[in-house]
């Protein structure tokens, strides 16, 4: 859907990105100043690359050599900025229709009613933006971008300016967009929570470059990318499939490459692909097979690496079958148990979090 290869120098900073993004949600993740927002601005036509080429849905938007540089209004991309940028002199309804009015009738593939319903903004239509809350404004901004029926939706940290409750309120809306309206989304964020919840593909950005591109679970399992994905944020992210329910005990079974996990009963049919997150701090290690123990998820594995962090904490990477888990233990425990790479251990998983409940296009 999106192919780009661009170079741009901004003072001492160089953005140089080669990237191809497919359907679904592609997340650009990196710390602030890694070039994520510049990239979005260049795709949107609000900043000009020095060199390169940008193609969206088979249409060349920018090509330095061929001297093609479509202005933003000709690109047909939806942009949701960090601030909602609603037009204060227009009602919510007029804001929603602002881009739509300029789209030929035959190309208005996204219906107003559907967007209003999904975003839950029906009761706001006749108000002025000044009277909306931050979360409501951002919902309207998303609706406005969608209703212009863009070929791709660019979202530049759309939740960064909101407080935690508003974020939690908005995430489900964004999660449904890509599939409900069959529109690819390029999502910029520096919050791993959002990425895990939304993204199919992850692009790790660092110092103006795309360091790694791939499925979220794959990239987060690569130890050498940990400095970029974040030490505590990463934990382990596993592709699982709901393999069964036990209603008498209120639990569900989740199959993954390394075995089966037991989680609290989830309301999803058997066979659903889910993205499961296991925080390193929720995993304990046992050298001998634990006997009678309340923890239900005990996974045999092999220690692959140990990383000493701050505050006498050690992050241990354990390979269980084909999957990688992280356990966070104390330096004291490591010393007294004599944990070393290659040792056989048992990972005791105390909590399993469902990060995303319907991983589209991927098979568990």
């Amino acid at each position: 859907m999106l192919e780009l290869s661009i170079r741009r120098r901004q003072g001492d900073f160089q953005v140089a990105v080669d990237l191809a993004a497919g359907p679904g949600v592609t997340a650009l993740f990196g710390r602030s100043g890694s070039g994520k927002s510049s990239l979005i601005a260049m795709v949107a036509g609000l900043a000009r690359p020095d060199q390169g080429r940008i193609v969206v849905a088979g249409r060349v938007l920018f090509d330095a050599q061929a001297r093609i540089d479509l202005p933003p209004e000709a690109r047909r991309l939806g942009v949701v900025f960090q601030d909602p940028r609603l037009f204060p002199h227009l009602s919510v309804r007029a804001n929603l229709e602002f881009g739509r009015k300029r789209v030929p009738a035959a190309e208005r593939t996204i219906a107003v009613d559907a967007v209003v319903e999904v975003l839950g903004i029906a009761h706001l239509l006749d108000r002025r933006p000044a009277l909306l809350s931050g979360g409501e404004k951002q919902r309207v901004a998303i609706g406005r971008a969608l209703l212009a029926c863009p070929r791709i939706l660019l979202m530049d940290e759309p939740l960064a300016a909101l407080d935690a409750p508003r974020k939690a309120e908005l995430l489900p809306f964004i999660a449904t967009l890509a599939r409900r309206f069959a529109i690819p989304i390029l999502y910029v964020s520096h919050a791993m929570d959002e990425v895990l919840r939304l993204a199919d593909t992850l692009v790790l950005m660092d110092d103006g470059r795309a360091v790694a591109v791939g499925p979220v679970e794959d990239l987060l399992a690569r130890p050498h990318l940990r400095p970029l994905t974040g030490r505590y944020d990463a934990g382990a992210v596993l592709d699982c499939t709901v393999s069964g329910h036990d209603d008498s005990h209120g639990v569900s079974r989740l199959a993954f490459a390394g075995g089966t996990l037991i989680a609290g009963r989830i309301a999803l049919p058997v066979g659903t692909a889910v993205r499961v997150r296991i925080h390193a701090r929720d995993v304990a290690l046992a050298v001998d097979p634990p006997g009678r123990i309340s923890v239900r998820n005990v996974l045999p594995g092999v220690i692959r690496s140990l990383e000493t962090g701050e505050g006498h904490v050690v992050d241990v990477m354990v390979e269980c079958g084909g999957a990688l888990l992280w356990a966070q233990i104390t330096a004291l425990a490591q010393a007294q148990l004599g944990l070393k790479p290659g040792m056989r251990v048992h990972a005791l998983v105390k909590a399993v979090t469902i990060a995303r409940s319907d991983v589209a296009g991927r098979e568990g």
Partner: protein
Amino acid sequence: MLTDLETEALRLSLLVSGWAVAGSLPLGLACAWLLARRDFPGKMLFDGLIHLPLVLPPVVVGYGLLVTLGRRGPVGALLYDWFGVTLVFTWKGAAVASAVIAFPLLVRAIRLSLEGVDRGLEQAARTLGCGPVRTFVTVTLPLMAPGILGGTILAFARSLSEFGATITFVSNIPGETRTLPIALYSLTQVPGGDAAAARLCAISVALAFAAMLASELLARRLQARLKG
């Protein structure tokens, strides 16, 4: 209620000021846009030139207009030869003099309002399919409206009170260039004109007050629209 002389002066004042403001508004918008949004060589000089009438004695401006726009002036001669237009000693000339004097106030107010418009909103409009011109008309201009209104009223009021440049450039001709302030001045120059002068004074005050009130009410309505 009003004497013929008063009606005449009032009509002329409104005509001259109305045309002065209406005629300079598009140019004022263009200048404000250049100053707020563009960088070009000589911008300081351009800015200074626009603001010059604010600090010069109006008589100097009037004399300058007389020299350049008079029948034999470099610009005035061309205007007459090409379009048959004579400015000097006509109400059109009075409108030009008022416009020049009030121009800095108009540009200043519009420029401030333009600088207050969030460029992010314009970017958003561009990504939603509006070209630069349409973006300006549908987003920038409505957001500037309070400033444009304020500048227009200010310029209108300044035009109503214009005296020095007008009398120097187009003189004091009853029915043609004798606006309210000039009529008032004339009355103070003849014996026994005090009572009539006082009436003109009252009319001037009422007019200025009405303009201010109207602008305030309109500005409030516009602000209310932006705030919801």
